[in-house]
């Protein structure tokens, strides 16, 4: 049962990759998909390892990432 997960709004992502840099567990990665603005949005591995540390969300200039955590 995952302790936490993130939701990335692909339309807000501008592929700056700061979230990829921030994630200590390398759970976020680039894709070759395109959003409507012409950026390649990043995606998060669907997994059990996310701790909900929010470092990715804090680093994201666009607030494209929302973080959910088990209480």
């Amino acid at each position: 049962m995952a302790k936490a997960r993130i939701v990335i709004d692909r339309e807000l992502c501008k592929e700056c990759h700061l979230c990829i840099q921030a994630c200590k567990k390398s759970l976020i990665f680039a894709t070759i998909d395109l959003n409507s603005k012409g950026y390649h949005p990043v995606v998060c591995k669907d997994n059990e390892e996310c701790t909900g540390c929010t470092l990715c969300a804090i680093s994201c200039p666009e607030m494209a990432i929302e973080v959910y955590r088990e209480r």
Partner: protein
Amino acid sequence: MKKVFSRPKSLKSTPFHYCAGCGHSIIHRVICEVIDEMGIRGITIGVPPAGCAVVAYNYFDVDMLEAPHGRGCAVATGIKRTLPDRVVFSYQGDGDLAAIGTAETFHAANRGENITVLFINNAVYGMTGGQMAPTTLLGMTSTTTPPGRNAVLDGHPVRMSEILANLEGATYIERVAVNSAPNILRAKRAVKKAFQYQMKGGGFNMIEVLSQCPTNWKMNTVDACRWVDEVMSKTFPIGVIKDTGRGHKDAD
């Protein structure tokens, strides 16, 4: 599961027009998080600059008054003297604050005007396409210093935080960066302290934010963030420049 990170309420939901990785986007959010946490949205009035953030009123859900280029500190002075119990901040870039607006910034600090200045330093003129700024580093290329900034021809980069710290009226000045999560969190604490000081009548305070500008630095965002640490902060050291603690009794 509980949502533990989302957009602050005092930040409008308009997607940012800023470039990918721009420091403006991050510091806008940080300021709004502080406004939310302090519950001061209703009494905050901001003064946006001429620069990339000229349309800051599209993002900050607080009352805002546009200032002519460089005059943010004078306009903020007029507002704060008229409504002393509001939280008044000026948000300015390096050209706005340290070139055309040098006198207004210096004298607002010297008079100890009880305002908070957010000084967004990206070492270049962003909106107009990358010309030299007062804070452009030696050797740094720009569209008006194609071979790189030369001390003899173009002068040295200006450290406004250190200069203003010499004035008695300036009571709290800190330089922060937004190029990594720890730095962003530090920046948020500094902004909160600045607003708390203002609310206690603490005099002029300024937070200088080293802001990555991938577009005009001609780097990708990750490299630009690294450049802030490896190069920019050597000329503009991060940390508290001055803190007299005046008005700080309950400041964080």
